[in-house]
């Protein structure tokens, strides 16, 4: 894998992300970049479901939100170390999705997509009524929880570097899976599930596995980001809009490609930032995102990456 240019490109971009805000201690840039990194984590992991396997997961934000809840619960109520809590959150969410995936991934196509909307709504309704997690009001991180990490200031920087690391890891995992036997089986399921089964691919098991894998890193990231934000509530953690935006990012960049997922996420997040802060356009950001999605779906379903590949065919060798 280290012979491929994309591998080094991913490392270089991650390093750039980590170093840029350090230069001049730029907190504004850091906050922008962490949003971009989170968007990239969500899009890259969603790509394994939509781009590789061909299954639309409208509930992809569930992993992120549940990870956040478990992380905050373990650190503030149980007094765990942040890293241990984040890892535990990732594993718990992955296990949950694996078991759940074995049940609902017998559904195909659109029925699975609908079931994921159901999962999102059911999890949100459950958390909104779950007393240990503060019901609808959510959980807050008391200021003292940052003390073991050397104060709030240091904690914010630490979570930033960790999130950037997870972003790099997400892209590397996507790349690794894409070039593995496991990845080939997923592509076979995407192209024709019946044919794949006939050739000996255990489709329900493979689908459940990729469902669980694509939940792990977003859950860890959720634990870190919500800890950094200092609060979590059901409406913010399980927002269908975030799930949908991750899908828009993926379509914008080009589903099925590692570079496309990252590029789409970065571009969409920067565009959204611009629209939200611009006074005349802020209420229009949904309209513009929607129009963008519609145009991509109708006219350019392989996204920006597809366009780049057609324009400069040699770029495929670098980016794949």
């Amino acid at each position: 894998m280290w012979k491929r240019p994309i591998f080094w490109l991913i490392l270089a971009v991650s390093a750039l992300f980590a170093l840029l805000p350090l230069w001049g201690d730029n907190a504004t840039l850091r906050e922008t970049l962490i949003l971009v990194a989170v968007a990239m984590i969500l899009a890259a992991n969603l790509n394994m479901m939509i781009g590789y396997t061909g299954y639309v997961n409208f509930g992809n934000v569930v992993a992120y939100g549940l990870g956040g809840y478990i992380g905050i619960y373990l650190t503030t109520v149980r007094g765990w170390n942040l890293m241990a809590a984040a890892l535990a959150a990732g594993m718990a969410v992955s296990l949950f999705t694996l078991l759940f995936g074995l049940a609902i991934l017998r559904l195909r196509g659109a029925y699975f997509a609908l079931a994921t909307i159901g999962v999102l709504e059911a999890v949100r309704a459950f958390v909104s009524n779950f007393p240990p997690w503060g019901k609808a009001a959510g959980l807050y991180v008391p200021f003292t929880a940052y003390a073991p990490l050397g104060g709030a200031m240091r904690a914010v920087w630490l979570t930033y570097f960790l999130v950037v690391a997870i972003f790099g890891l997400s892209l590397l995992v996507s790349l690794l899976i894409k070039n593995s036997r496991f990845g080939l089986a997923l592509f076979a399921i995407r192209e024709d599930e019946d044919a794949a089964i006939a050739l000996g691919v255990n489709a329900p098991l493979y689908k459940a596995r990729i469902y669980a894998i694509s939940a792990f890193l977003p859950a860890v990231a959720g634990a870190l980001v919500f800890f950094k934000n200092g609060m979590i509530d059901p409406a913010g953690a399980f927002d269908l809009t975030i799930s949908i935006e991750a899908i828009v990012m993926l379509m914008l960049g080009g589903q099925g490609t590692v570079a496309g997922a990252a590029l789409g996420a970065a571009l969409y997040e920067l565009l959204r930032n611009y629209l939200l802060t611009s006074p005349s356009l802020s209420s229009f950001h949904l309209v513009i995102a929607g129009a963008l999605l519609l145009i991509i779906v109708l006219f350019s379903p392989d996204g920006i990456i597809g366009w780049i590949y057609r324009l400069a065919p040699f770029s495929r060798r670098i980016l794949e």
Partner: protein
Amino acid sequence: MSEVLASLLDGLFVGCIYGLAAMGLSLIWGVMNVINLSHGAMIALGMFGVYLLYSHLAINAYILLLPVMAGGFLVGLAIYWIAVHGVVNRPQLMSLLSTFAVNMIVIGIGTTLWSTSPYNVNFELSGITIGPYTFTGNHIAAAIAAVILAASLQLFLYSARFGKAIRAVADNRDGAELMGISSAWVLMVAFGLGISLAAASGALVAMLFPFTILSGGIYELKSFVVTVLAGLGKPIGALLAGILLGLLEGAVTPFVAVSWVPLIEFALFVFVLVFFPRGIFERML
């Protein structure tokens, strides 16, 4: 005991509206295999349609159902040509995304025009009082309107020539084309009808409860549950499943906090999807 009965009766009335909302979704899904994710936005447009007409005309709000449905039909035709026609034959992901894009655009424009603060239609029919409980006229009228619309859709699909053409296209598009049915025309009208039904259900809801531009989302989700319960393309089935869902809500609310209801509904939804993927009425209707 009487409290439970009253709650059940209330669930019955509201359930008819759930059924009506789901009929639009189920019709489009069944005929062209497109899951219309702009369904909630269309329901919300129906709500604002009746609100705007009523605040200008101030006549019996139930008469306004007709212009709202006609408007919904036209909006449906436009959306079909802009966003759906090009993706009908492509993988289902594409139509999910294109209809969701329409949803984002409509909700975005609606939020700019009307913000997300609640509106309501101040139109009250006199109700019926049974013992300590009063059922407002609006609830009863909404249920009656929903049943009439469901019956007319059923009649249209099974008796009218064009309705039969819609069912033929739903069964086998190529076969229908060979019999001389222009499927593009049929798909467009079916989409228009689906949106028109969504708008009608929104209009009926608007006369019952306060609403915002985002309120359609709740009914969209309930429509998914109802459609999955009922199976595709059966208006009477959708009505029955809607009533079933309404009765379930009515039966549950006296005993558990209202905030648990969505969890119960979606657990049921996932359960039915996994174990009865063709709906619970498969053998009956």
